[in-house]
């Protein structure tokens, strides 16, 4: 499959709703694996990495799950193409910076993506819409089991799967979910929530992983420990915590609707006005307003169908996606203009938010 074909198909998770997808955008699971008798990518010479890739790439391409896949060496991709893959969460920022002997393989609907010679020889990822950590893990587990028939994975009875960094030892598994938590942010409970998650061995990060800002009220929550628990136990624990977080988020929203309905109306209304009429808009401003429109969907002020448009926009307005659609390099100023254009045309059919549910309740209060 060519890169242009990959681009034309938005990732499956953007188009199909999953369980709890009002609050959980995606569930992702990744497994780290290494081959025996080869140095890890960070310590390997260029020639070693090339040999490792020659061993891994055909094994991946032969999998039935990866039929008609997109498979490429990192050196064959332009900087913007690599950035597009980062913006779609298909490769890491670190992998985008990699050179010779590194590659990436992904299936057509972008539910499975594999990085070759990132920090480990193999980093395989499955992504699903909504809260579906277990199904994401199951699909990856099958791929892992098929691969181990041909690839000799480095494994130790005590330490489990051997990884370049000891923080990934054991299962080599990182499970994470992307949550939309505007209620907890607006009610200022988010810091407490993050600290609480940290205390029980979970990490909370921004939109693009480690060290990134929490834009659009989106947070990634993932397991820290990989050694000493079974894969299913790690996922079950994370699942339980996320279910609780969903509950907290819903309560925060209900409480805000009760205590300060006008404040929410104002936020959603402003977001609508800006997105609908702006001609210059930064990524950050756009993302934060899109978050409010999404909240409007959840609360019934904005038609449910808009959720998909918002999901697609979250990715389409990122810098590399804009430059791909313009077919040329754009300065930041040019990007802000194109971004506003794309948002206006995408939201063309969007009518003003309907706050009648809140207004009726307010009338009731007056009586």
């Amino acid at each position, binding site marked *: 499959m060519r890169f242009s074909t990959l681009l034309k198909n938005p990732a499956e998770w953007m188009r199909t709703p999953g369980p709890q997808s009002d609050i959980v955008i995606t569930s992702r699971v990744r497994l780290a694996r290494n081959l025996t008798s080869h140095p890890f990518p960070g310590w390997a010479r260029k020639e070693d990495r090339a040999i490792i890739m020659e061993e891994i790439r055909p094994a991946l391409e032969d999998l039935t799950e990866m039929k008609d896949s997109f498979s490429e060496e990192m050196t064959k991709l332009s900087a913007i193409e690599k950035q597009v893959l980062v913006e779609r969460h298909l490769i890491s920022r670190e992998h985008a910076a990699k050179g010779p002997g590194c590659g990436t393989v992904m299936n057509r609907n972008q539910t499975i993506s594999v990085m070759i010679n990132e920090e480990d020889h193999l980093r395989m990822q499955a992504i699903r819409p909504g809260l579906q950590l277990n199904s994401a893990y199951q699909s990856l587990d099958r791929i892992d089991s098929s691969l181990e028939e041909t690839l000799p994975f480095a494994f130790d009875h005590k*330490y489990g799967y051997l990884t370049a960094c000891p923080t990934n030892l054991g299962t080599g598994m990182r499970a994470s979910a992307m949550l939309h938590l505007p209620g907890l942010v607006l009610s200022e409970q988010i810091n407490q929530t993050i600290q609480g998650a940290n205390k029980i061995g979970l990490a909370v990060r921004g939109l693009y992983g480690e060290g990134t800002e929490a834009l659009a009220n989106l947070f990634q929550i993932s397991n820290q420990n990989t*050694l000493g628990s079974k894969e299913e136990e790690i996922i079950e624990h994370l699942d339980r915590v996320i279910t609780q977080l969903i509950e907290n988020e819903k309560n925060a929203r209900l409480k805000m609707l009760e205590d300060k309905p006008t404040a929410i109306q104002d936020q959603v209304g402003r977001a609508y006005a800006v997105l609908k009429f702006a001609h210059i808009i930064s990524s950050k401003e756009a993302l934060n307003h899109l978050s409010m429109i999404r909240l409007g969907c959840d609360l019934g002020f904005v038609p449910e169908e808009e959720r998909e448009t918002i999901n697609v926009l979250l990715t389409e307005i990122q810098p590399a996606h804009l430059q791909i659609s313009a077919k040329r390099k754009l300065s930041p100023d040019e990007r802000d203009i194109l971004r506003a254009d794309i948002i206006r045309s995408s939201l063309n059919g969007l009518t003003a938010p309907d706050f009648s549910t809140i207004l009726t309740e307010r009338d009731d209060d007056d009586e």
Partner: protein
Amino acid sequence: MNCDVCQTEKATVFFSQMAEGKLQKVNLCKGCADEKGVTDPTGFALADMLEGMGEESTPEATFAPDELICDSCGFSQTDFKKTGRFGCADCYHVFDEGFEGLLEAMHKHTQHTGKSPASFPDLPSAPESIDPDAPMKASPLDELSELKQSLSKSVEDEDYEEAARLRDAISQLESQIGDS
């Protein structure tokens, strides 16, 4: 909390690093952090800095002529200190000493309980008990049928001494199989 180096300014940079198989932490103020080059992680080793402060570390750690090196990939303990990552899978056995303590700081437990490749027996047996050079040991049943074949051959050959020995061996093996 004050800076560990100057002890006067408020610490704003918190640095952790694995060194000597232990997790070490240093709290620094902005000035000392810049001076020590903490902002450049490749050129900074926490252990070296602690030594510079003249405490918490022994002088012989600054240079190690007998430093452990992984035979398979040439990775050294210093490399691990610098990067926090290993060079290859074999490094885990080479740098085993003190590693457990480091793992305890990172993970809940230090014994893997999750998935294992199908080619690895699913037993929690110690890896060192398996000698890859030892010949494959036949199962008792295979051994038994082999013995029986030899027995009939020795009877045919009229080697009754050997036949008696084999008969005893067979009955011993049969009782063993019956017990298990």
